[in-house]
């Protein structure tokens, strides 16, 4: 009986030691969100990107899916802040993206602007892995009219907040384009994230949303 108790205590001790070490390590590590490499930036002669397809009529987005970084999130709408900046989704919702309502809808001609948090106060959020996207990756946007607009990533860039290229990111486009924006570019306790990760994509496919699809 005593031997059994001793063995149990020895086992519990080992388990507690292992758990404690793991918890301490993962609880204190400083894991920054992934950032795009230079290879993902805009290039004049990059790999062949799929050709665009004709634009869709306007229809608001309802859900975004990015299979390669396991994003699957509903939309809210965004406006402008009093200083003219892009609004953001509520800071407490980690799995929610925002669409700039005054701009183009995803799939119609123009620049559709989508923003999501990289993290909330509690940890990683919907666009935590946005910087890990690579050229050619697929981004799907389900729209209210029952279509799914499929975009291909053209570039993933990171910009400093002090040198943010407004026109390039938000400016008009003559084909259906999409921007996915989140925070990035390094972090300091005093100033927060130094800039933004921006994904540039254009429409390369359209399909019907299967009726009764799991949401």
């Amino acid at each position, binding site marked *: 009986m005593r031997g059994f108790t001793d063995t149990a205590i020895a086992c519990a001790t080992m388990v507690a030691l292992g758990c404690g070490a793991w918890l301490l390590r993962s*609880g204190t590590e400083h894991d*920054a969100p992934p950032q795009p490499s230079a290879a993902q930036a805009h290039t004049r002669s990059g790999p062949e990107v799929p050709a665009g397809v004709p634009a869709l009529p306007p229809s608001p987005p309802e859900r975004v899916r990015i299979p390669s970084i396991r994003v699957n999130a509903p939309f809210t709408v965004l406006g402008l802040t009093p200083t003219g*900046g892009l609004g953001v989704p509520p800071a407490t919702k980690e799995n929610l993206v925002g669409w700039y309502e005054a701009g183009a809808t995803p799939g119609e001609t123009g620049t559709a602007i989508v923003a999501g948090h990289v993290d909330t106060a509690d940890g990683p959020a919907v666009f935590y892995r946005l910087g890990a996207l690579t050229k050619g990756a697929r981004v799907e946007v389900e729209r209210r009219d029952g279509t799914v607009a499929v975009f291909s990533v053209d570039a993933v860039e990171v910009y400093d907040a002090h040198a943010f290229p407004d026109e390039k990111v938000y400016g008009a486009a003559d084909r259906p384009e999409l921007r996915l924006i989140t925070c990035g570019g390094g972090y300091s306790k005093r100033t*927060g994230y130094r800039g933004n990760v921006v994904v540039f994509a254009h429409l390369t496919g359209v399909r019907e949303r299967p009726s009764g699809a799991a949401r």
Partner: protein
Amino acid sequence: MRHTPRPVASRLSAGAALAVVTAGLTVGLTVGPAYGAETAEREDTRAGRLEVYPTNVVPGAEVTVGTVACGADGTAEGDASSVGADAFALAPGTPPGNTTGRFRVPPSAQPGTYEIVARCSRDGAEVAGDVVVRLTGAGEPTHPRGSVKTGVGGALGPDPVKTAAGVAALAVAAAGGTWLLHRRVRGEAI
């Protein structure tokens, strides 16, 4: 969003078709129909349009319109009732050949695209252009400016809950280890 009292396309396309046919007959003989159609369309877009400046406005803004459709020293009546503005007059303006006028978008105007029409006094010809009313930012199409605050650093730095749990687990391990060591020191086999 688009408030158009009359369809623009049909009126313009009738004019365009006529111009294309005319140009096709005259120019087409020498240069070919494609070139003729192109030229006619280009001329038609200038002659058949009411230029609106600025195109994107906020409620309460003053808008200038102009056209070359009414000829030299032409005058015209302006109709901006679609956006809720009073009728206004267009008079010969600059550069020569232009007929220009101004109106004010009512402060109560709702966002949207509105058709503004001018009717030439000379021959009753109508030209139209669109003004886009937005609630924020005049001038260029409204788009956001600057970077976006989409993170607070919550994914970085220590997680207090995990850290506390880790410390507690290590304390348990220490207690267990101590107990076992004591047994050993006292010479009792494990």
